[in-house]
């Protein structure tokens, strides 16, 4: 009596389950292929960046920024925002303005002498760009500055983006 429905509905549950799981296994292998393609993409990006050169770009004149002041600029490309901070009389530091967490724009807090990401309260050291607090996983990429007379010139990124 209990198996009466099996005569009315001749569903082969075992075979059905087998086919479903085999299909799912194929999907897993396809996902594995996707992961491999992703690795190849990272490899291609790494190889393309190996020979990258950075332009020299005048960022600011030393006299135009007061101590604790900042200047925003774009480097190395027009879509890469950066921030230049005058830490002391003769010390300047420049970093990418994109937070390494979710790319929000960081700003300099003169009171705490730290770079702050307002989105998720991430804090970076203004001395070397290292992360001090919050969710950012990596330090801010630093802009390498060269001082020629009263001009500050950006000559590269560390690590190179």
């Amino acid at each position, binding site marked *: 009596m209990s198996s009466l429905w099996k005569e009315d509905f001749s569903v082969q549950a075992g075979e059905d389950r087998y086919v479903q799981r*085999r299909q799912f296994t*194929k999907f897993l292998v396809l996902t594995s292929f996707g992961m*491999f393609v992703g*690795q190849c993409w*990272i490899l291609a990006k790494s190889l393309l960046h190996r020979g990258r050169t950075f332009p020299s770009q005048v960022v600011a004149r030393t006299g135009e920024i007061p101590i604790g002041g900042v200047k925003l600029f774009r480097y190395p490309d027009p879509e890469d925002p950066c921030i230049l901070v005058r830490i002391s009389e003769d010390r300047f530091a420049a970093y990418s303005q994109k937070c390494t967490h979710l790319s929000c724009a960081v700003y300099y807090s003169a009171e705490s002498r730290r770079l702050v990401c307002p989105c998720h309260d991430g804090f970076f050291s203004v001395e070397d760009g290292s992360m001090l607090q919050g969710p950012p996983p990596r330090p801010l990429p630093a802009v390498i500055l060269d001082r020629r007379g009263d001009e500050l010139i950006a000559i590269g990124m560390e690590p190179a983006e």
Partner: protein
Amino acid sequence: MKRNLVQVDAVMVLILVLLVVQIWLFSATLDSYLAGHRTVALPAAIVSLLLFGACGGLLGFLKRGSDRQD
């Protein structure tokens, strides 16, 4: 049929484990790439290829078993 089900389950679990390792490898490589460590990309791609090959091999094994049944 029961034997077939056990076989497909075993292969599925093995592929799932390999896939988890591959996903972890991908996220770790992406993280180190963004941190500027570019030298890990090549060995990671090779290991990912090996893992994909193992997944493909397991699927092939399943297919051969299924063909033998038919």
